């Protein structure tokens, strides 16, 4: 899975946002707020990743147990899926 083309991530004030720009904004209106972990996962998903690859990346980058990481990854993917932001090969 991978984030569709056309999103940009910007820090606006102290808020980190992912915003749809151009064609993709016809399907996805508005923005997604990213915290630090979400921003990391977003960055990872700009390139094609499997669930397990994403999970390993999170476990490597953050000092958290696998159960917590797994929960974070699932939650984040759900948010992206609700917005129709992910494409799957």
């Amino acid at each position: 899975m991978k984030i569709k083309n056309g999103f940009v991530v910007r820090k606006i004030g102290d808020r980190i946002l992912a915003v749809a720009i151009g064609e993709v904004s016809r399907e996805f209106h508005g923005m997604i707020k990213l915290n630090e972990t979400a921003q990391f996962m977003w960055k990872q998903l700009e390139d094609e990743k499997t669930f397990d690859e994403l999970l390993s990346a999170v476990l490597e980058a953050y000092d958290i147990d696998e159960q917590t990481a797994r929960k974070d990854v699932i939650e984040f993917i759900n948010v992206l899926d609700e917005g129709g932001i992910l494409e799957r090969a």
Partner: protein
Amino acid sequence: MFLIKIADVIIGIKNKYEWIHKQCTDYIVKNGTPEFMVSATEQELFQEQQCADRPYAKGYLESICVYRKICSQLPKYNAFLLHSSVIEIDGAAYAFSAKSGVGKTTHTKLWMNLLENRAVVINGDKPIYRLNKGEFYAYGTPWAGKENWNKNANAVLKGICCLKQSLINEMYSIPSCDAVDELYSQILIPFEKENALKMLELLDLLVKTVPVYILKCNITQQAAELSYSTMTKEKCNED
């Protein structure tokens, strides 16, 4: 075809209907080179009608379509639309932002009652803000909502108040992250990438340089007294 100047930008409008021409009367300029031209096709008017809540005259549809196109270009000139009502008093501008129906118009009326002849509504609904030498200015435009309160004037923006309906009045300043959450839905992100990125940069500068507040308010005069005194008081040393 005619030329208007809004936020100190000269724009050429190729209109098909007279409505927009009449609407723009106070903003028409006779001379000058337009920065860009705008027009709306019949197809675009049709699409505009499809998204509207009820049937509108073609002239009105042309006007809203043209304004959206103008606002999509403005970030290039460090300017942008923020859905808000903005009042000038003593040379400074104070904005009230909220989605339609929350009470921008009502709160604006309360300010006008409170301040009488000292205050002027620069624009009651769709003003332009423009960054000029590190400060944001509010500008009047002919697009100004149902009441059509507008004045071809500008003033330096000293505060933005995000309105919430409430039984009791309460006001506090908010950090830039919350300001972004409040204001993001009241700006227009242009379709074209370059302008969209510029718009995000401008929003970043806006929340970093202009104080943003939440105002939970009812419709009594006390609500206006609170927002007026909070936004106009001199900044105190906070330690």
